């Protein structure tokens, strides 16, 4: 067996400068407050032995996820932990180093054998395993009782407690693997694949339903229209095309077209183009036949004459209206000559009046100037004489003024009034003349339009139209003739047209049959997907995926079964030890015959643990945290006891084992430890002074105490040996 004798630590987690602790007594106590480096000291031993294996999620210890090895407050220095073991052949020194951090970190391990040989790297790792035959899980289960393991056991959550007990039993790797498989959720990917396939299947199914429905409806319609159900086949459709082709040629001959060529379909795929071809050929034959050409010409003539009748009637009406308008005007206002004559008379009147005005104006000027002269220029004496003849005329000025006011002014005013009246009349006649000219223009235009129309009628009727001919009557007579001819021709064509309609009817039926068969073909194409090579390959892939799922499930079940088997083996091995230690440490008044039972969690397949007492009941609901801690310690001691014979290590490490224990339990624990010291050396870390005192007092083996007095960022733990 291997005894732990010494550990040297530098830059590991909370440690800075190199420190060395010797374990040369059967019981070594690491005592001090929390965060003073006690647990790191124990962790350092573990890390030195197992390196990366004791770091990360795989350990099953939550605190180890993202666990930092180098002291984050020390820059540059490498981490070194050296542990010395005393074995049967001498001392073994294991030194593990780590340089750098993160991805650039590089490590080295050296094992110095008792003969001084030094092994490094993989050789050193192999040597460690050869020496101890111990995995990290074994070490954690039976050598190093982790603080975290106890904490997790104390939880009331079944899942967390199952995790913790798995960890106590060293089964975390199984659990992690099974959980990894569960978390991969492969079945979801498989389900998604199945769901995609199902979507595709449903789409195809839907398409078939739609094709079937449409085909059924069309078939019912076709049968209602006289198509026999048994003729709705490709073969019958081809026969039908032959009949239609012959009917079209016969129809063309009836209409006088003898050189019509029709390409007959050779396969069902050519039926649709055949239908289109025949349809356009029937139209061509129908429209280009002499009867039809003549009929078309007559119809065109009929439309032309009809249009001319309307046009002529409009022109005639317009001409009559213009004539009436002009005549009524002349009747009212006279013709152009009358208007000119009247205007001329008015002009003469104006000239005459203007002449009178001019004469009156001359007299008026004379009187006005005389008045002005008499009033402004001459003296009062001269004013009584005539300025021209010098004769006495005492009332001259007054006479002249009276003349001006009473005669001349009135006379001129009357004359100007007369002139204005004549001028107004003259302007009125000018306006009437203009209106007459407009009416004359309109009449001329209407007459011209009528003449043009008559020319058109003449051209349409292909004859001259004299003054005595009535174009409208001529047009109507001709139109009647054409209408009558058209009617007799239409009757003649109707018989030929019946053949055409019959062919179209056949074509419509052929089209319906073609559509039904096309739908059935499409349906068949969808159905054939399931016979394709691609589909068969897909089917094989689905089988393989299913096999993969089953394999994964089998692996998962095997792992879970192995974990369960191993758990059962260990629990059976721990057997009565569990109850023995629990009864001693917890000293519970009612719980006896405590046993652990493992079953499969039906949901996850993982281990699920039941704790039962001898009454067959689960005691956990009445267990205190202290009791649960006792249970965890009991399990650890039980497993350690079981493996005592095969255990390579001669020591146990206990990290803060008295969590939640009350005084009596601590005393009982010390008594158990006293017993254990017969088989193992103990390294115990505790912040519990009561527990320390109990240990110091009641453990009969030699003891050594390291006091962890404090911790600083720059110097790490302050440790004092206090033997």
């Amino acid at each position, binding site marked *: 067996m291997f005894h732990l004798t010494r550990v040297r630590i530098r830059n590991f987690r909370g440690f800075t400068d190199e420190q060395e602790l010797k374990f040369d007594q059967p019981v070594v106590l690491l005592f001090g407050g929390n965060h003073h480096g006690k647990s790191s000291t124990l962790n350092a031993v573990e890390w030195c032995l197992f390196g990366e294996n004791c770091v990360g999620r795989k350990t099953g210890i939550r605190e180890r996820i993202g666990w930092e090895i180098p002291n984050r407050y020390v820059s540059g220095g490498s981490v070194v932990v050296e542990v010395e073991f005393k074995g049967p052949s001498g001392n073994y020194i294991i030194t593990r180093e780590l340089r750098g951090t993160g991805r650039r970190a590089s490590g080295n391990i050296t094992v110095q054998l008792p003969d001084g040989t030094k092994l490094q790297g993989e050789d050193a790792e192999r040597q460690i395993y050869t020496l101890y035959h111990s995995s990290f899980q074994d070490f954690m289960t039976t050598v190093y009782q982790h603080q975290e393991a106890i904490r997790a056991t104390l939880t009331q959550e079944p899942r967390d407690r199952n995790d913790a007990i798995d960890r106590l039993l060293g089964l975390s790797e199984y659990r992690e693997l099974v959980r990894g498989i569960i978390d991969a959720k492969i079945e979801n990917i498989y389900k998604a694949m*199945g769901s995609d396939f199902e979507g595709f*299947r449903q789409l195809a199914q839907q398409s078939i339903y739609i094709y079937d429905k449409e085909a059924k409806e069309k078939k019912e319609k076709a049968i209602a229209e006289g198509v026999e159900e048994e003729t709705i086949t490709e073969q019958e459709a081809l026969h039908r095309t032959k009949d239609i082709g012959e009917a079209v040629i016969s129809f063309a001959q009836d209409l006088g077209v003898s050189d019509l060529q029709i390409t007959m379909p050779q396969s069902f795929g050519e039926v649709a183009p055949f239908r289109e071809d025949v349809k356009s050929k029937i139209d061509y034959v129908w429209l280009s036949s002499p009867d039809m050409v003549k009929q078309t010409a007559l119809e065109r003539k009929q439309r032309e004459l009809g249009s001319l009748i309307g046009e002529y009637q409009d022109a005639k009406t317009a001409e009559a209206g213009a004539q009436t308008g002009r005549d009524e005007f002349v009747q009212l206002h006279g013709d152009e000559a009358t208007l000119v004559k009247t205007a001329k008379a008015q002009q003469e009147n104006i000239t005459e009046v203007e002449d009178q005005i001019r004469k009156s104006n001359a007299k008026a000027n004379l009187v006005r100037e005389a008045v002005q002269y008499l009033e402004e220029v001459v003296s009062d004496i001269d004013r009584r004489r005539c300025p021209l003849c010098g004769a006495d005329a005492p009332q001259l000025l007054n006479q002249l003024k009276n003349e001006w006011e009473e005669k001349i002014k009135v006379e001129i005013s009357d004359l100007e009034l007369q002139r204005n009246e004549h001028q107004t009349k003259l302007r009125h006649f000018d306006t009437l003349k203009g209106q007459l000219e407009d009416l004359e223009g309109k009449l001329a235009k209407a007459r011209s339009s009528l003449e043009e129309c008559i020319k058109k009628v003449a051209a349409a009727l292909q004859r001259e139209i004299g003054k005595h001919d009535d174009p409208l009557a001529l047009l109507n007579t001709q139109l009647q003739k054409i209408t009558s001819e058209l009617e007799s021709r239409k009757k003649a064509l109707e018989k030929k047209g019946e053949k055409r309609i019959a062919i179209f009817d056949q074509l419509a039926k052929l089209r319906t049959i073609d559509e039904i068969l096309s739908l059935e073909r499409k349906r068949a194409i969808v159905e054939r997907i399931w016979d394709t090579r691609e589909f068969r390959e897909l089917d094989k892939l689905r089988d393989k995926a299913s*096999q993969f799922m089953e394999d994964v499930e089998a692996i998962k079940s095997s792992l879970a079964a192995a974990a369960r088997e191993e758990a059962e083996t260990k629990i059976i091995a721990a057997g009565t030890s569990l109850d023995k230690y629990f009864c001693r440490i917890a000293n519970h008044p009612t719980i006896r015959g405590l046993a652990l039972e493992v079953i499969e969690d039906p949901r996850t397949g993982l281990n699920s643990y039941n704790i039962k007492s001898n009454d067959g009941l689960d005691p956990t609901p009445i267990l205190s945290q202290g009791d649960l801690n006792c249970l965890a310690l009991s399990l650890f001691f039980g497993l350690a006891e079981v493996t005592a014979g095969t255990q390579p290590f001669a020591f146990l490490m206990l990290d803060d084992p008295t969590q939640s224990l009350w005084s009596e339990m601590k005393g009982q624990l010390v008594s158990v430890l006293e017993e254990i010291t017969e088989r193992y050396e103990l390294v115990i870390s505790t912040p519990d002074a009561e527990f320390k005192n109990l240990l110091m007092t009641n453990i009969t083996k030699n003891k050594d105490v390291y006091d962890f007095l404090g911790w600083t960022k720059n110097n790490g733990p302050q440790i004092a040996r206090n033997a």
Partner: protein
Amino acid sequence: MKVDAFQHLQQIRAKFGPGIFGKIAQKLLAIALHEAGFFDIVEREVQGADIDATNIMGKKYTLEVKTTDGESIPISRENIEALKDRTKDGYLPVIAALRIQMFEDWVFANIPLGNLRPGSFPLSRLRAYRIKDIETSVCPAFEVVVNQHCSGVLAGGEHYLSQVLAQKRSECK
């Protein structure tokens, strides 16, 4: 399964309901096994595995027949026991499951009985244990049988198929 056979099965189910339909499907499958060259066919209406059949190479199969609309089939403890029971006589236990959907076929799965648990069992899991040889011969035969006997079943129900089966058995003798 092609559309025609599927539609025929739908007609049968619509007429007789899901309970009787399951029995009819079992009988149709038994006839299909005859058509596919299997012999010594025993079709049970009550206790035990649903069908026993032996192929041309002399290999003996015992079938638990299941039809479903969904994506899983119900497996009972009796089903598992019935299959287990027949294995004592050298029969290979097989779950024959048909999802009644267009383009779905019978799946014949030789799933280890240890993997079967009473309850709902996903059809997708059966795929891993398919016996392709049986499927290749029986599935097309089943379609033919369904198309051939659909009108007979619709008219005479289960009784009609019992007569057909009896006739097949006498032909074999």
